[in-house]
């Protein structure tokens, strides 16, 4: 297999790599990403929902032209669905065949039954299959959803890039995958795991960055509308809401408004489309009242002043 795109050699190159895939990043993120690529350490991304954590892995796999292997975590995720499983029906069949052919060497039967042919590879094992220059991007998504036991299991994989299968032995990656771990902080991840990673808190973007994101992601959006949308969302984040809207919500909202052929925000439109932005009834109730109107007039006044 041909050697694909090389890893970036400087922080600025990393930044360029991300922006080539329309991902607007700041220096902080580019630095930590660059270091994790060069030091071959997992990147641990923490942040509110919808700030583009998962997107980083997707962008990276596209930009570096490597396969993306995703392990979505959930409660009760175990070895048989994360790492490997044996193909039991095929194993049974193998035993019957051995019987039929009169094979009676036990070790031979055992070797043929627990051979790689009958191994079903789950994401973790797939991620360790990378060969020179084509190690996959391995995304462990929402790690906080699984339990501590699985977290502890990941320690071996993340520090040595190997897994042990009792029947087969230890499988080690030729080239370690690019590991990206995301969490929403619904519980604290143990220090032992964090210690092995480079940590980065992905924050909500600043207004100018967010405006750039909207322009890139929603190209049809009217210029004034996108300004208003971003200013409005930025204001919302300063309010004491139960769940502040993330960047994903901003993009959704801008798309919705563009689809509705709006050129500027008005109170009716806001209340009709607020469902794309706020997802909790309490928050919506607050914005639908007079607070929402005040917010809108404030935004408009500020934008008018800026022009």
């Amino acid at each position, binding site marked *: 297999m041909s050697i694909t795109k090389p890893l970036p050699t400087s922080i600025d190159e990393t930044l360029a790599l991300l922006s080539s895939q329309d991902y607007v990043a700041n*220096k*902080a993120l580019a630095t*930590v990403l660059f270091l994790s690529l060069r030091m071959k350490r997992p990147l641990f991304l923490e942040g509110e929902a919808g700030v583009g954590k998962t997107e980083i892995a997707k962008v990276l796999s596209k930009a570096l032209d490597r396969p993306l292997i995703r392990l979505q975590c959930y409660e009760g995720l175990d070895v048989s669905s994360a790492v490997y499983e044996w193909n039991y029906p095929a194993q049974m069949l193998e035993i019957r065949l051995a019987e039929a052919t009169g094979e009676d060497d036990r070790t031979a039967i055992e070797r043929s039954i627990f051979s790689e042919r009958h191994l079903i590879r789950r994401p973790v094992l797939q991620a360790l299959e990378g060969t020179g220059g084509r190690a996959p991007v391995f995304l462990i998504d929402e790690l906080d959803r699984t339990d501590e036991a699985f977290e502890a299991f990941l320690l071996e994989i993340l520090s040595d890039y190997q897994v042990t299968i009792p029947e087969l032995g230890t499988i080690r990656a030729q080239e370690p995958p690019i590991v990206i771990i995301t969490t929403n902080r619904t519980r604290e991840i143990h220090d032992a795991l964090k210690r092995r990673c480079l940590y980065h*808190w992905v924050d909500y973007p600043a207004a100018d960055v967010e405006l750039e994101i909207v322009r890139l992601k929603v190209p049809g959006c009217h210029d004034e509308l996108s300004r208003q949308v971003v200013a409005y969302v930025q204001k919302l984040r300063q309010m004491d809401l139960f769940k502040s809207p993330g960047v994903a919500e901003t993009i959704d909202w801008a798309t919705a408004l563009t689809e509705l052929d709006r050129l500027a925000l008005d109170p009716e439109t806001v209340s009709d489309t607020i469902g794309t932005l706020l997802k909790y009834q*309490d928050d919506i109730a607050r914005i639908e009242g007079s607070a929402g109107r005040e917010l809108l007039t404030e935004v408009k006044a500020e934008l008018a002043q800026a022009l």
Partner: protein
Amino acid sequence: MAEAANAIKFKGGEGRIPDNVVYFARVLRKAGMKVGPAAVRDAVEAVQIAGIGSREEFYWVLHSVFVKRREDHEVFDQAFKLFWRTRDLVEKMIAMFSPVAMENKQREKLKAGETRVSQALFEGHEKQRPPEDKPMIDIDARETISGNEVLRQQDFAQMTAFELSEAKNAIAKLTLPFDQVETRRYKPSASARKIDPRATMRAAMRTGGDLILPRFRKRRKVHPPLVIIADISGSMSQYTRIFLHFMHVLSERRRGVHTFLFGTRLTNITRQMRNKDPDEAVDQCTGAVKDWSGGTRIGEALRLFNRQWSRRVLGQGAVVILITDGLERDSIDELDTEMDRLQRSCRRLIWLNPLLRFDGFEARARGVRTMLAHVDEFRPVHNIEAMADLVSALGEKDAAKADPRRYM
């Protein structure tokens, strides 16, 4: 920009950078961040890989290695500014290790973490202050409520060995109702419900595949996470000590116990409670909490909990034990909304009310009535003298009596 120029100047004497990173790590450690030797090694490696470009890049390179929690960002920020600012590093090192007092810089309001960082940098330069005497507070403010914020320090008598063993015995007997949840993991089982294919295959290999006998498995059960939110206001002060010990023993014996205290503000004391020694744990709590025996704002405290912590600690079917007398002075509306949200976010909400003097309890106080509507279990206690009373109040035995509707 002069600083950026300085940062570039380091390039000349690159040999000193690793040393300085080590010193910097020491400062961070003293300021309370967890920075181990492995992190220092990583930092030096990271600096070598990234090279020393602008000050901003250097900042983020060190940041990505040293900062492992979001809370540490502020401390790091301050430490970086203080440590990597002076023109001459040697001069600073001399200042750091010599007894000359640092010149007082004109500065506006101190930012979060700054005090800790400068203490770490210039440790031992402050004049020795006489240790403050902490007064013992003997006021029994039971049945007095107020919404005013009074900040007080509190000391608790240490736990005797007898008490400790009693408490451990009592907690060992505690079985909370509905205290087992099925996980999606399995363990071997003798009962023939579900076949365990992997174990079956492995066992079959023992006979060379001649005999395939089924093996079985069943779902593993665990205790769900437990969140304890306890009121430490004046009206509850009599029981605070026993609650702290209760929380400590529970944190030690169970996994996933999170503990919070509130009076007029909410404090997370989970980390303090992890301390093995009960007296040390309680001491650390007394240091962390500022509003001992003050007023109560139950609604406000619950609002804070719901906003800041509920999504972080109530995952995976957590059970909440709320310990308060329910005597709320502030808005009942807020209490209503927040109790409602709390009940919806957890698997089971248990309210332990220790302020009952007699059996024939009637919910008269407005706060109590409001809260009763939103709890799954109401556990009144008359008098808590020992952990055993608390345990028997929470135990499974009285589950039938715990229906909150009996009191409404």
